[in-house]
């Protein structure tokens, strides 16, 4: 599903000098995999994930998603593709404080081609599936961290992506809350969703089937 070849990410340090965050990344991830990316802080894990999620465009190399050459796409085409294929879960949840749970879930749908009734149906389904129907009118600050991340995951998958990217989804949670999210991931993976997560915890990584170690921008082992 994902094919990276000689992928590089670097930041300019002034004249002709660069700081490399990712170097010569070659990686294949098949459909249905549940991959955990691990490594020390600053290794480039988030960077990799945001490149996969097409938030970051400043890289060199080749990135194919389902045989589409992303490196040949224009930003707008990438955005369209991302909207169709990818969901993203953030360590800091990034829910919108002024919106209710219901409205937060609606956001991704509002930027895709869903009719009003389809939206309502999808949100209702998702609330149901995540067992948060009772919370739909609450604001994020009225929820616990675990509940917020639950909404974050729900929001990431509501538009039915094929690929779920999660950057330290449990990093801000107590272990029991974290396990709940990981159980959820396993369930999603069982249903066929490809998942790439960044994590520091071996426990979380153990939910996945494959671990990629990053160090100073290099993949060191698998």
């Amino acid at each position, binding site marked *: 599903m994902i094919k990276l070849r000689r992928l590089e990410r670097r930041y300019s340090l002034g004249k002709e000098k660069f700081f490399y965050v990712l170097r010569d990344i070659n990686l294949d991830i098949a459909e249905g995999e549940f991959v955990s990316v691990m490594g020390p802080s600053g290794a480039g894990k988030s960077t990799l994930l945001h490149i996969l999620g097409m938030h970051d465009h400043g890289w060199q190399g080749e990135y194919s998603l389902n045989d589409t050459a992303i490196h040949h796409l224009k930003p707008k085409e990438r955005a369209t593709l991302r909207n169709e294929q990818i969901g993203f879960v953030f360590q800091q949840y*990034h829910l919108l404080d002024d919106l209710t749970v219901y409205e937060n879930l609606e*956001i991704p749908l509002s930027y895709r081609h869903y009719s009003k009734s389809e939206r309502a149906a999808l949100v209702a389904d998702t609330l149901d599936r995540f067992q948060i129907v009772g919370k739909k009118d609450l604001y994020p600050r009225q929820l616990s961290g675990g509940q917020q991340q639950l909404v974050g995951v729900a929001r990431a998958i509501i538009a039915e992506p094929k690929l779920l990217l999660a950057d330290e989804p449990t990093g801000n949670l107590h272990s029991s809350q974290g396990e709940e999210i990981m159980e959820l991931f396993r369930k999603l993976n069982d249903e066929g969703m490809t998942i790439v997560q960044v994590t520091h915890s071996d426990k979380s990584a153990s939910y996945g089937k494959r671990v990629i170690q990053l160090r100073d921008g290099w993949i060191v082992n698998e």
Partner: protein
Amino acid sequence: MLKDIRFSLRQLIKQPAFTIIAVLTVALAIGATTAVLSLVNGLLVRPLPYPDSQRLVLLLQHFKSQNLERIPVSPPEFKDYETRSHSFEKLGAFGYTSFNLAAEDRPERIAGATVTSGVLPLLGVSPIKGRFFAPEECMLGRDDVVIISARLWQHRFDSDPQIIGRKLLLNGKSFTVVGVMPANFDFPLQLFNLGSGGQFGGRAEIWKPLAFTDDQMKARYNRSFWIVGRLAPGISAAQAQAEIETINAQMRREHTDNYSQDNSFGGDVFLLQNLAAAGMRPALLILLGAVFLVVLIACANLTTMLLARAAAREREIAIRVALGAGRLRLLKQVFTESVLLSLIGGAAGVLLALWGVELLKTIGAQTVPRLREVNLDLVVLGVTLAICVGTGIIFGLAPGLASSRPELTEALKEGSRGSTVGKRRNRLRNGLVIAEVALALVLLSGAGLLIKSFARLQNVNPGFNPRNALTFEISLPKMQYPDDSSIVRFNDEARRRIAALPGVQAAGFSTILPLAGTNSDSSFAIEGRASDKNTPSPDEELREVSPDYFRALGTPLIKGRFFTAGDKADAPPVIIINQAFAKKFWPNEDALGKRIVMGGMSDNPKWITIVGIVGDMRHFGLDIDPKPEMYVPFAQSAYSTAIYVVRSNQDAQVLLAAIRREIQAIDPAVPLANVRSFENLIADSVAPRRLSVVLLGVFAGVAVLLAGVGIYGVMSFLVVQRTHELGVRMALGAQRGDVLKLVLIRSLKLISAGTIIGLIIAVMSTHTLRAMLYSVSAFDVVTFVLVTVLLGGIALAASFLPAMRATRADPMVVLTAE
């Protein structure tokens, strides 16, 4: 305190963009305010430039049955008032005149006044050299003395220390200078809506004694003098008015031939102060309202700007609170800064106003009474200072309270987004933007209506063609031109020579020009119509004109003929009337060939035959419908002053030089005066209106600019404030268009709310403009739509920049921020 100021200054210097915008905002608002305050102060508040001027009055008369208001008095009437009244310390009569001052190079026409001996002393201003007129100098034969202005003394006589006793050649006659009045002395003042400008409406530089002839003393109907008086101590204008009415009753009883026995005739006592600029009062009050709105908008702007900055300085404030800064201390710090800002801005505004006031003077000094006196005095500066401090405190209020509340600061420190505090402040910010848009729209609607009126007025057909027409006055001195035939001979020759100049299409002259501020009328009787003593005889406008006058003006002949060279003094008396006249007196008949007699019917009437009917022209103002007018041949009723109209396709300067040569060839001592293009003359006639249009237009422009800046500021802040939200939305699939829409819809909501409220206020308030509108309804839909679209467009454009910036934001920045 000093420490606060120093700290504030450092803050301001640290953020030059913020400071510049804030200072400019204040400068525009305060500049507008100061300019209008100067006008209000100079025109309405400040006493006239005479000691104890609240006791100065003008005594005018009216003939209600003939629709005559504020008319001058006749010499015998003046004597009646003078000898019988006790309410006045002194009364004096004066008239407008002008003098041909002889000079080696080129003779000059100089505006002046004739005054009875009481006039100058009662005004309370002493001569800087010499003396006033003695009573005996106001008698015929003794009146060969003049008092001149210091202005004339300086620029014509090089401030000659020996000026007293020096002889001047005025109108070909020798006069001795007995006094010099101070440079700032101004009398008579131009007065609004009074035909008092004289034909040569300049500032009087020469005063001559007014001596009445025996004939004048008998002619109760010959009203061409004005009365000025000083109320006796403790007497009010109302008390004087009551006494005048008693005297009027006596006059009616004693001269039954001259006054009808109803209350149609009478005199009115006006405080000079109230009369002086009364015509500008409504406009000034509206302008005052307008600048008030501008100041409010500026305050709203600065509040939002300071609020935004307070938000940006949360950390600094939090630290201060943590270090134990008290609420009062923080408040003081904020106020120091806001007041400092408004003082710096105010200083810039005062400079702006100084420049603006000078500009205004060039627009209207000729026609707006007292405008010349307008300046920025200490009173205005004091009020401006108070307004600056006041506005500084007002726009520091919300930011001050926001940052001085420790519990708020706590909330802010947590950085909890969407807290109730943030919401409340957003609501304030939104409210301010809505208010700004609403206020700007109110101003813009008013300005729009005035501008449309002005445009309509410019397009009014005055009944003649002002393009390519030059006008000037020639006044012949009595000494050299003692009788009608000499006057007619001179003017005929002058007209013949001018008409023969290359490029001249037509040349004519008249005693009275339309839209020039002068006027003359006469009563008359119509042949075959019964006239009895109790109904007043009709009275209409009368002018004496030369052949070709109408052709030079471009006024069409409707019927009959124009005057010709054949309509000489000894030819049968003829008259031309305009359409309004024909329609009024012969609504269903042909007026041509009908006969009238000037004055009243007599046993041996001198019949004048109507030989032509010409088109109507607007005489009293572009905004006043034409009135019935009569024209008689100048040759049959000559005056010493003639106003020429020359239509030509020749360059005005070249033409003027040629005309001067021709006139000098006839008589080198006769000057041209009051040379103007007819277009300038018309522009002068609408100068007071132009003044208000320009001012209100500029203020509306400033308001729109400020509202635009305000919306820009609030939207920029909003975008910064919502960086997180926008970043997340973009990460979740929002594309640039979605983000743009999000921001623009938000600002569109504010703009719509503002315009709706603004339109409601505008509809409720534009009726106050009604007096200043011309052929435009106070609810002119087109104007309202236009200004709404204009303001909406500008406001939307102002929010477009921040919106664009929002779309360029990189969500990565938000997403990867720890």
